[in-house]
């Protein structure tokens, strides 16, 4: 009961937040936190639970971004529809990509995912007739047009991405509690043992890749609508792939709230750095991120959530003894 009340209170605070906070900078940071939490949750479904450590999720982010933008600019179709279309394109793309990459295990799976995402970026860089080439394009500003996913106030974007995150968390929760969640963790622990108890590992991996890439593509559409600009370097940015994995690992790999907590920590750190040092020094954000990542891996490989679980387990053990 207590956690239900807590959840309702948290949701109320999150909904009220844009009404109270006036600083555009602060809202922007909140939007970034929600967006990367969302991408992190999408990554974590496959990377965290099933331990298929992809560093190529930018592929789906980019496909989502390009699908909705092409539909909007060339065919006047609303990005709301484009967003779902982008998700479907990403799912379609994940089938051959997964078919290739899942032949490899461990670090070579990771490398193969990097290679596919980079190859996609190169394709979009090269074909200018198809999608504006390397220069990219700006997305026409229609003023306040909620039906075209454009808002005058940043609060509008805030609610969109809050909704996306809620959706992803709900999906994640459902999966975690079902047979699928158990199967994913089993595959992540030991694929041979998983197959021996009747788990169709290739199919489960394919299915979770479909879900993960669909969600990641939604984030791509949202992001280009938010910044009104698209080019291959932005849409297929390696940083998206990195951050998706990073927030999950720092927060707690294979846990529902891990990516959210990881994003809050990393994005807040980065925002603080920016306000102290300005954005003049290139590389400082990722320098700090990589130091945090190394520290987590060396001392807390289960992430912040894992640490909480350990504490809780220890407290339970003490209660049992007493």
């Amino acid at each position, binding site marked *: 009961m207590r956690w239900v009340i807590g959840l309702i209170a948290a949701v109320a605070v999150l909904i009220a937040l844009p009404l109270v906070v006036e600083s555009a900078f602060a809202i922007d940071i909140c939007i970034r936190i929600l967006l990367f939490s969302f991408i992190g949750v999408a990554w974590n479904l496959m990377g965290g639970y099933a331990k298929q450590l992809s560093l190529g999720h930018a592929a789906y982010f980019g496909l989502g971004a390009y699908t909705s933008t092409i539909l909007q600019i060339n065919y006047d179709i609303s990005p709301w529809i484009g967003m779902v279309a982008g998700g479907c394109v990403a799912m379609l793309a994940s089938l051959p990509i997964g078919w290739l990459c899942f032949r490899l295990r461990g670090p070579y799976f990771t490398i193969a995912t990097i290679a596919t995402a980079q190859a996609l970026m190169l394709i979009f860089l090269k074909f200018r007739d198809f999608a504006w080439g390397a220069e990219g394009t700006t997305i026409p500003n229609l003023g306040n047009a909620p039906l075209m996913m454009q808002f005058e106030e940043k609060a509008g974007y805030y609610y969109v991405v809050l909704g996306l995150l809620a959706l992803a968390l709900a999906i994640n929760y459902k999966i975690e509690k079902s047979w699928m969640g158990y199967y994913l963790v089993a595959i992540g622990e030991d694929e041979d043992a998983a197959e021996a*108890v*009747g788990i169709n590992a290739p199919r489960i991996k394919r299915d979770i890749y479909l879900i993960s890439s669909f969600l990641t593509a939604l984030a791509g559409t949202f992001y280009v609508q938010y910044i009104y600009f698209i080019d291959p370097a932005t849409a297929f940015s390696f940083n998206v792939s990195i951050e998706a994995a990073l927030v999950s690992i720092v927060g707690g790999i294979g846990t529902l709230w891990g990516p959210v907590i990881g994003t809050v920590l990393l994005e807040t750190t980065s925002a603080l750095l920016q306000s102290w040092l300005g954005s003049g020094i290139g590389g400082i954000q990722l320098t700090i991120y990589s130091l945090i990542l190394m520290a987590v891996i060396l001392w807390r490989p289960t992430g912040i959530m894992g640490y909480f679980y350990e504490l809780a387990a220890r407290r339970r053990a003490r209660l049992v003894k007493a």
Partner: protein
Amino acid sequence: MADALVIKKLNKRFGGLRAVQDVSFTVRENETLALIGPNGAGKTTAFNLIMGFHRPDEGSVTAFGTEIVGMRPYQVCAQGLARTFQVAKPFGGMTVLDNVMTGAFLHYRNPEEARDKAREVIEFVGLSARESTAARDITTIDQRRLEMARALATQPKILLLDEVMAGLNPSEVDQAVALIDKLSGSGLTIVIVEHLMRAIMAVSKHIVVLDHGQKIAEGNPKDVMANPEVIRAYLGSYAHSPNGGVA
């Protein structure tokens, strides 16, 4: 009794090594067959061939009349075959209960039902006290029990046990023998790879002996133990001395 598992002319090479050569044997329903032989005789390879972890170069394996060569391990499992691994492979981060539930999900997709079924099996193997401990934190022996429980949770008709008694002390061996008897009593067909003669004699009336990948003897325990080929295989380096036969 009908035939449960029929293995015909199984062959597997790894590079130049003929790991399994023309091995054939039949396991009848509800019997416990022991597969024995010196180290490197091809017992575990035979298990891997039966369960779909390796694909045989030639040969056929049928389970209750269905050809299972060419199936992947999860498909073989769905045919009613389950196995344990020689080196236990628990899902270390999961609790004992969650481990066994992954097996139970094969037939019960509802988590509540799967949990109930898993608890039954955990109790059967005597692990109830460890139910909510992480699998990586239990003893090696408990991990073997866990392997068995997880395999049993898939509700197999044939259970393949790969050296489940290695490293057990005598009273633990007795417990394990009792457990296998209990399983056999419930109608299960069992194939067991084991080194410990005492345990084999206790659980099995039918023994197949492998050496260098080939079947060298088959029959009831007494005949097999008296077979000169078997004695030679087991005595290894003493084989050439004329009076080497200790047995």
